[in-house]
């Protein structure tokens, strides 16, 4: 998977290169620098990438529907960003560690996060849905950009331990304006931390276009911090896979961080609470639909002689099943016990919280007693 004769730092020589291996219409574009990194991706492997993307798109739509139906409190759809997420996450090893924002459901899919685990936090049932150490992926980060520093620190630790594993930080175009992200670049470069900074430039930060955050390609931000930056077609799963592999390879070889800007598009609203019609045009959306990440893979597969229709049907079936599983899972998420509100604030006993918890338990018990006494009375305690 690692072309041993290649020096990944060669990518520094073409800072303005826009990496695209598959055109929007599905033509394979030769790129002597990046091609070797996906030489192993045969028709089957490509089909698997398609399968990932199709399933997560379906899951995402299902979750959006679940939110509309009141089963979830909120959902931040990923639609449009499947290639960026699948291409990058499929480049990772199991022992690499992921720090993401709130939109990386496809990354979670690749990390083996299960449907109930995925939905728990969006249902509001618990502070998080999975154990980060089971999936080598931190739970979603909502403070914009904060996770870039966590990934950097984690990578510093990986390096100090002598591991060749890496970490990856996912964040958006808007996040690049936060101090934390820039400080992460500083630390990562200074300590040669094996971290990949993966920007999904989906053109928008809620209602704000990327041009408000930066007048320069975001990948160009890298050079000034002393690391290579790659600008890649984020709707081209193959190109994203190649770019991420190169960056991870650099990390493993002790060459430090890499910044990847995956140019993509958020097809849906920022979250289910958002109405994108207030700030962007239908034309823009239509234009990006012509660059859909799934369609081009199907087209490429068809062009290479694969039975794309059959694949599509097959995968659609799988996706339907996955969606059904997701829908079934949401109702299995247990409602939290009232007293669990106090759990895990501290790892060690805390006298103040113990007292507060005790008092609240008495408060709740009083209601139970009142209820029992006035059994049948309506309107609760009073």
């Amino acid at each position, binding site marked *: 998977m690692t072309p041993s004769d290649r020096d990944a730092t060669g990518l520094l020589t073409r800072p303005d290169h826009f990496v695209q291996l598959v055109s929007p219409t599905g033509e394979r574009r030769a790129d002597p620098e990046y091609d070797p990194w996906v030489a192993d991706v045969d028709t089957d492997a490509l089909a698997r990438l398609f399968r990932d993307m199709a399933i997560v798109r379906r899951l995402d739509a299902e979750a959006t529907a679940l939110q509309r139906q009141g089963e979830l*409190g*909120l959902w931040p759809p990923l639609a449009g960003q499947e290639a960026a997420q699948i291409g990058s996450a499929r480049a990772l090893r199991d022992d690499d560690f992921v720090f993401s924002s*709130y939109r990386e459901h496809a990354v979670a899919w690749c990390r083996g996060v299960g449907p109930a685990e995925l939905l728990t*936090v*969006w*249902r*509001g*049932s*618990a*502070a998080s849905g999975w154990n980060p150490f089971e999936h080598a992926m931190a739970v979603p980060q*909502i*403070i*914009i950009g904060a996770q870039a520093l966590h990934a950097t620190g984690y990578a510093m630790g990986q390096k100090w331990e002598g591991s060749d594993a890496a970490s990856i930080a996912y964040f958006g175009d*808007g*996040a690049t*304006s*936060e*101090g*934390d992200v820039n400080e992460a670049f500083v630390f990562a470069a200074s300590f040669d931390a094996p971290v990949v900074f993966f920007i999904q430039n989906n053109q928008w*930060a*809620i*209602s*704000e276009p990327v041009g*408000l*955050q930066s007048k320069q390609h975001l990948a160009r931000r890298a050079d000034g911090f002393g690391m290579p930056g790659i600008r890649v077609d984020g709707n081209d799963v193959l190109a994203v896979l190649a770019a991420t592999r190169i960056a991870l390879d650099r990390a493993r070889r002790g060459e430090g961080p890499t910044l990847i800007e995956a140019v993509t598009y958020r097809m849906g609203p920022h979250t289910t*609470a958002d109405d994108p019609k*207030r*700030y962007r045009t239908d034309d823009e959306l239509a234009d990006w639909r012509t660059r859909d990440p799934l369609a081009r893979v199907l087209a490429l597969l068809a062009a290479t002689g694969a039975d794309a229709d059959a694949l599509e049907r097959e995968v659609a079936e799988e996706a339907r099943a996955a969606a059904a599983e997701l829908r079934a899972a949401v109702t299995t998420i247990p*409602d*939290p016990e*009232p*007293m*669990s*509100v*106090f759990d895990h*604030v501290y790892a060690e006993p805390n*006298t*103040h*919280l113990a*007292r*507060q*918890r005790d*008092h*609240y338990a*008495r*408060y709740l*018990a*009083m*209601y139970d007693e009142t209820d029992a006494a006035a059994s049948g009375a309506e309107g*609760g*305690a*009073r």
Partner: protein
Amino acid sequence: MTALTLGKAINEGLRRSLASDDRVVLMGEDIGTLGGVFRVTDGLKAEFGPNRVVDTPLSEAGIIGTAVGLAYRGFRPVVEIQFDGFIYPGFDQLVAQVAKLHYRSRGNVRMPLTVRVPFGGGIGAAEHHSESPEAYFAHTAGLRVVACSNPADAYVMIQQAIASDDPVLFFEPKRRYHVKGEVDLTASLADAKPMGLATFIAKGDDVTLVTYGALVQTARDAAVAAAEDGVSIEVIDLRSLAPIDYESIAASVRRTGRLVVAHEAGEQGGLGGEIIAGITERCFDYLEAAPVRVTGHDIPYPPAKLERHHLPDLDRILDGVDRVLGRPNSLSGVEVGAR
């Protein structure tokens, strides 16, 4: 009088400030084209243009830090922090710059910033969207801190905050944004009650109940419920959290002899402690029982399905009232001094 939601009342207050003083500029994430995630700034960019209502890059320190520079230049920046939990990246600029610059410059540089913060829980939101960080700012010398609780106050207080030559943290109870109330849009600011004064929401004789923001409505409801039970609660809407209008609270406590303070923020180091200490200092001989705090727990804000077990509600406030009155309550029989 016009019936407006609290959110719309603030919108109207902002509009009037923008119209009456061309040094007023609004800044924040998504406040322009979108009109803010709560639509509080809706329509203002269209009306006043992109140099008066400014969509900024996604960076709270950047917003507050550039607002400091604008204040140096003579502007009156009104900053929106999208949600309470996103104010912390701007904390350094607020605490080390905004709060200190007038002092540092020996009165030469004024910092007439208004920092609008939708705050508090009860809307079933995700993490970081329901916090109550007001005590941090009330402890910061150089800042003023206010919280509105109803449309009429909100309309006036936002204008007062903007007109103030001191920096003001302006807390808006987000779960009351959609509650309507009568607002006099023509009211003159000159006649308005100063934002530093508390308001008596309900008169009562047995217990003084002090709160602010979203809980004011809850406290009012509690007073009604208690009245049915023969308990007369005086409800005070604090409005100003720094400085605190101790004169009003003390006047009440001298009559009632009993004090309950309620807030959504955690108890430990929260404003309840400040108010109880301040009132104990002023009214010790009048107190008939230990003042009581009814607060959120000292936990990170919990997931949506647990927030009703975190936020003080009508029942918990009434339980606090029962405690201060020595009536049967959740801690009856508990040696509270035990630990």
